[in-house]
């Protein structure tokens, strides 16, 4: 009896977990080249900027996009850093940012192009201490 109660509870939990929602998946954009640099380079704790360069398949700069940046540390429980920029000039976008702690970061860029299509790309950044 106990076993069946346990199994029933487990099945209920699995059913509940099946209700897990699906995240919105960005529409892939082909032939878009995304490069990201950091300023200062190498990255260190404090005020900074992300320099994103967008070019199309023929190497022409892509302006008019909207870029959302999200920085997460590799350790769980750290608050993300959120920033955004739009417009761009000659395909370059400068996004004011702040590295709040030294360590390993993941920066996720979500780029919405003028035609509404969206692409997401992740970059790894190692940030050193302010005095390093």
């Amino acid at each position, binding site marked *: 009896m*106990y*076993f069946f109660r*346990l199994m029933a*509870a*487990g099945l209920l*939990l*699995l059913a*509940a*977990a099946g*209700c*897990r*929602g*699906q*995240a*919105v998946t960005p529409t892939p954009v082909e032939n878009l080249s995304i490069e990201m640099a950091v300023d200062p380079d190498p990255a260190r*704790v404090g005020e900074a900027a992300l320099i994103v360069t967008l070019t199309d398949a023929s190497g022409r700069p892509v302006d008019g996009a909207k870029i959302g940046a*999200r920085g*997460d*540390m*590799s*350790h*769980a*429980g*750290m*608050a*993300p850093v*959120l920033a955004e920029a739009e417009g761009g000039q000659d395909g370059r976008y400068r996004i004011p940012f702040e590295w709040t*702690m*030294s*360590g*390993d970061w*993941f920066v996720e860029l979500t780029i919405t192009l003028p035609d509404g299509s969206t692409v997401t790309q992740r970059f790894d950044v*190692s940030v050193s*201490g*302010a005095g390093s």
Partner: protein
Amino acid sequence: MITAPHERRAVTHTRLDALRLPLIGLLRRRWGRLALQIPLLAAAVLLVIDGFTGPQLAARNLATVIPWVHFRGFAVLVLLLAGNLFCMGCPFTLPRTLAKRLSVRGRRFPRRLRNKWVAIASLFLLFVTYEALDLWASPALTAWLIVAYFVASFVLEVVFTESAFCKYVCPLGTFNFVYSTLSPTQIGIHDPDVCRACAGKECINGSYSPTPLVRLEDIPGGQREVRHGPQGTPGCGTLLFAPQIESNLDCTMCLDCARACPHGNVGLFIRQPGRELLNPEAWPKRWDVSLLAISLAALGLVNAFGMVPPVYELQRTLIKTLGIQSEWLLIGLIFGVGGLLLPFALAVLAGALSRALTRTKLSLRHTVAAFAPAFVPLGFGIWFAHYGFHFLIAPLTIIPVIQEFLGQPGDWAAFSSAADAVLIGLVQGAGLVLGFLWSLALANRTAMRLYRRDAVPGLLPWALLLLALAFAAGYVFSLPMEMRGSLLMG
């Protein structure tokens, strides 16, 4: 047969039995523990599902955010303010009754392993694994760890008659055991005469035996008939005998003893926090128990040291001088030396110095065992400072993680604020300073009891050791923390 221990039992608690209070008393009911275990089991299942199927980004996955940030922060607070509630609600032991049905009767955990050496080894292994595999950054590996926990606890429960996993193996439980010695609650009894006259000793034997025990005589104060059989109540899984309990060590607070007692004589009593640390008879005088208390404090320091810049210098030096290429070996060396060998060697040295300075006849083992409980408050303070930092740095990020788990957009902007840095520093400082002062007071009291007029020279080595540990912890926490994988992982 109840012998001397409860006759000479010190007053370890007040007469206030929390199980006789409204609501809390429900825990004593047959399904009382399940009320805590079911939500935690549900949480564990969700963690495993998110760990395997969710985003493999630690900050956005329940499997990493809850165990490595929120659970640890809550655990230390609850241990200090209430008791070992996390062992009480532990979902890993939920299949215990099922395991009992399947178990082969009569097989006990090997005698040579009935101590804390295995628990010390499993703590060491957990810390090394945590760092070497960067568990804090990997939802999938954390989910595997949770699954491994369920399997290990179930298998050991099936194979052995007692709760071997809880008592001898579980690293989380061992942590809870040690620091629940500071808690304001403890299992105890109302009337020793009832226990003295009790024939069945159901608090430890349980009443699930297929062969009913023969009761020799009626017990005064008996409230209900004991019915032995498959539907009976298990006795204490860690083999503690309620009238003789003087410490929270090994007590999972499962309350099986209170449920099994046919006389309603077992309770969960309110006591002075850390009361047992003043009682020289509360802890066994064994090397394994002493090393556990001392090394757990040092492991807390090494664990925090792993997050500040000097650890990378140390790693580079070890790689350069010893030519170590294995990350496991590198981390194992740091934790093994810093968390086990060095503190134990220093404790033995302090014990030897105490003996030499006071010319006492007390053995080295008894000397170290007498001072070992003094390391509990400082050790707790170190863990409190570390876990408090992680908890306070972004306490509400759990909300957007849950939102995203449910398929909603996470409102990160609204729930990403951290507690003020000054406040975090004050909380950490308070944990360390109060822990150190409490430890020093305990060591002083021990020295007064052991050495009387020679108390000062007897205390001196231990006070210096505690001071060194506190200073080292203060230094580590004053450095900026880093969240980084280790060198060899790139």
